[in-house]
């Protein structure tokens, strides 16, 4: 069975989605990721979806769920590299993913995670979200 690899980078977990997401794969990822967060005591999750070209409402909801679950486990989630077509589709589906923080690329995403972890970086996007919890 195919699986999406979850890489550990210091305090963060790095997930790169490079295959077409189908529902079962998404559920597996959700399971694996939550397990890994609690195992590794990670404080940040970076999900790279730059090669993801097709989304549906389920995948959109899954992204939101993963972010919410990570937050409960005390890890910040940043989704990076969303394609224009994917963004438009999600908006048209009415999913604005309010709890998810986003960045243009992995670099920017890492910076965002580090800032939120250090507790400073007032200019960081969605900083208020991070502090509220």
């Amino acid at each position, binding site marked *: 069975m195919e699986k999406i690899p979850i890489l550990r980078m210091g305090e963060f977990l790095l997930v790169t989605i490079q295959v077409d997401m189908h529902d079962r794969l998404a559920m597996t990822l959700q399971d694996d990721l939550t397990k890994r967060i609690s195992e590794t005591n990670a404080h940040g999750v970076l999900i790279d979806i730059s090669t993801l070209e097709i989304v549906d409402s389920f995948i959109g909801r899954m992204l939101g769920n993963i972010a919410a679950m990570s937050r409960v486990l005390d890890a910040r989630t940043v*989704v*990076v*590299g*969303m*394609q*224009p077509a*994917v*963004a*438009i589709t*999600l*908006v*048209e589906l009415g999913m*604005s*993913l309010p709890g998810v923080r*986003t*960045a*243009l*690329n992995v670099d*920017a*995403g890492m910076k965002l995670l580090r800032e939120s972890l250090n507790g400073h970086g007032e*200019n960081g*996007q969605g900083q208020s979200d991070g502090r509220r919890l």
Partner: protein
Amino acid sequence: MATTLNQKTSGLGSIISRHKEQILSEWLREMGGAARRSDLIKESELQSQCSRFIGLLADATGQAGTMVQSSAYDPLRDLLTDISKSRAVQGFTARETAVFVFSIKRPIFTAIREELSKDPTAMAEEMWNATELLDGLGLYTTDAYLKSREETIHRQQEEMLELSTPVVKLWEGILALPLIGTLDSARTQVVMESLLEAIVRTNSQVAIIDITGVPTVDTVVAQHLIKTVTAARLMGADCIISGVRPQIAQTIVHLGINLLDVTTKATLSDAFALAIKKSGFTFVRPEKKKNKEQEED
């Protein structure tokens, strides 16, 4: 009954083909008074159009009488479509284009009168047939003319759509999208796509949407703006809406549109200052004057 109808229809056709030359010269003279636009069309071109028209008209009436919808009239209709199209391009008005067909009435009536002067009933019959036929063709010409004009308008609309959505780079990592004109669904789609693609291409973290040139903002337009902002946020870029005029601010509040999640600024320069701050840049005015004054002191 059927034979009389046949005779009648072929009657008009044969009258036209017998008097071809006479009709042509009279027609050209007729047009000379009514709608000659020698500035727009050459004499020779008009003449060849007219003689082709009469030839095809004689053939078609000979075959199918006054049934303009029948297939015998296909070549004639094609000719009229071509003529209307070229007239629309050349700058003729709808009236001038229609007169091309209507001005043939008098020459044909003259021909009918000459041919059937001894039989008033037949003459009236042919007159009616000719009127019906030419009215049909005239209306067809006007239709074709309008259609080609509409095609031109449609094409220009599409070109305008392409032209009206420039995404400009203001600074490293800062894009601006000055919107001018009314926003509808089709245009917003283009705007949204070009902005998001530019964000990816230039790796920009802040995008400013300037709506100074948008005359009115209603719920639909606001919805479109919110969608664009949300899509940009999903990709990891911040959007600022600038150029909100007092009138528009009032409308937005009266309509009950929630723009609380969107950063809005009154002017593009305010938005740019904010974008600069967000990107971590600062502007400093070099204080040369002060230093000079101090030196002088």
